[in-house]
């Protein structure tokens, strides 16, 4: 319909070279590179978030403890069970729980946050 149109003919005179044969490879390589860059950025972002979370967690914990609890906090950690079951060294178990309890809670929250963020990133980007 428009082949004989002068404007069409003039536009058709513009020389359009053939794209190089490695064009697709170049684009795919750039796509991979950008995906890797985004992954690194996300990783750095996550670590920054962990640092903020840990600081906030410890800060808030310390603040709440000092403000609202009058008892000696160390006593809780030094708790020993008052009963003894022969053959079970509950003393050591209680000590382990009291020493690592808070750390375990913190690590668990971080793990949960980590898997949630990774899940969000996975559904946002094309693998």
């Amino acid at each position, binding site marked *: *319909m*428009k082949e*004989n*149109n*002068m*404007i*069409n*003919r*003039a*536009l*058709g*005179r*513009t*020389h*359009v*070279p*053939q*794209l*190089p044969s490695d*064009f*697709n490879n*170049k*684009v*795919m390589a*750039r*796509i991979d590179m*950008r995906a890797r860059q985004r992954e690194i950025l996300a990783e750095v972002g996550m670590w920054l978030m962990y640092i903020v979370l840990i600081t906030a967690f410890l800060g808030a914990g310390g603040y709440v403890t000092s403000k609202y609890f009058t008892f000696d906090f160390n006593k809780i950690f030094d708790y020993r069970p008052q009963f003894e079951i022969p053959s079970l060294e509950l003393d050591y178990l209680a000590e382990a729980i009291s020493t690592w309890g808070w750390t375990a809670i913190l690590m668990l929250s971080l793990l949960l946050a980590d898997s949630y963020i990774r899940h969000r990133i996975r559904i*946002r980007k*094309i*693998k």
Partner: protein
Amino acid sequence: MLNNEKELLERIIGGESELFSKVMEHYAQAVYALVVRIVGSAEDSEELTQDIFIKAYEQLPYFRWRSTFSTWLYRIAYNSAISHGRRKRQKTIEIDERRLRQVSDSALDEMEQGTTGHSIEALQKAIGQLDVEERALITLFYYEERPISECAVILGYSEGNVKVRLHRIRKKLYILITQYSDERE
């Protein structure tokens, strides 16, 4: 349009990114040709075409099939080429509104049919003087033979606006080629 285009694109979104090569095999040269005609430089256009496909790949999960894939891809190409053209700030010619109004529709028809005696070289030169948006529109409408409705979607204008713009561009081209012919004489 590619065979099983929807299925192919869904597989790419699903993680089979290597299939994107098939999309490029089908559309890359056409997109490149459009970009060369809008931008004017083959070297810049190749890099720009790469950027367009990277953008299309990254935006693919947000493509909602409100238009065909090619229209959506052309819209990305158009926007990228326009931004590039604006950055380059190519020199264009502004024509007075009064002069545009003086050009009759019959003169435009004659120009398009080639009965005015103006050379095709003069028309080519005039097209080179248009700004990037105008060049994009006439390329889509005349060379790519896209219907007005599709041009409107690609350019982000209403259909009425596209018609008005096309009419103005034709008038502008007529004035420019007449000027070149007068200069020759």
